[in-house]
């Protein structure tokens, strides 16, 4: 019931590997790690959610926040490898239309 955050940065590219659960307890930690990265001018921040087993609206809030900041700083934010339960939250709320969610999504029924 925690969240591990590992950041690999090279030049303007940052890859953020998340593992665990994103909720009201872990969201502040994610925010603290992610938001500064989205202020990289002309940068790209890729968030790998493959090992995120649980997320709720507090997680959506952090990513909306990150998207706003990255837009302000001409930085790109992309979320990749979402588990279908996590992806579903973006779809229900319509956020999949404004966020860059990479298509390498596992286990989605067509």
């Amino acid at each position: 019931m925690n969240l591990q955050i590992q950041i690999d940065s090279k030049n303007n590219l940052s890859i953020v590997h998340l593992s665990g659960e994103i909720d009201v307890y872990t969201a502040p930690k994610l925010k603290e790690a992610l938001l500064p990265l989205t202020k990289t001018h002309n940068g790209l921040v890729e968030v790998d959610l493959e090992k995120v087993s649980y997320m709720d609206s507090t997680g959506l809030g952090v990513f909306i926040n990150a998207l706003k900041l990255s837009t302000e700083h001409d930085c790109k934010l992309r979320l990749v490898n979402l588990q279908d339960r996590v992806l579903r939250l973006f779809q229900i709320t319509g956020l999949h239309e404004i966020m860059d969610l990479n298509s390498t999504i596992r286990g989605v029924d067509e």
Partner: protein
Amino acid sequence: MESFDFIEMKFPAKPEYVGVIRLSVSGIASRMGFTYEDIDDLKVSISEAVTNVVNHAYDCKENGEVTIGFGVYEDRLEVMVADYGESFDLEKVKAEIGPYEQSESIESLREGGFGLFLISTLMDKVEINNNSGVIVLMTKYLEKLGVGFNDDHVSTK
């Protein structure tokens, strides 16, 4: 009257207990035979309701408590989340409860305001009692035939 088991739990209204509350609902729902997908919906819904209480307690600098009630019925699970530490007076809660009106569109929802919207989407019924403190009552029905989960379909029964 319809028979049911009632379980009540009380937690400090702190972020670190939301995950524990999720485990509780997961255990109860799994015992009842809910599908994996429905259990996930229940986990998100209860977390959203508890998160509202936790954030409110934090804003008000209170050392508040959150009370969770589970009504385990033959065909459904009722989950109550109250933003105070007293026990539920079930008849009173039910008598004073009303439907949750979804008046805000997604576009107008501010960041972090998705909680109740998600609950109303993921649960079969959501009611709110706003009398003394706030109680959210959420209901999820058991699907008897174990109908497959369809990713782009949201149940509206």
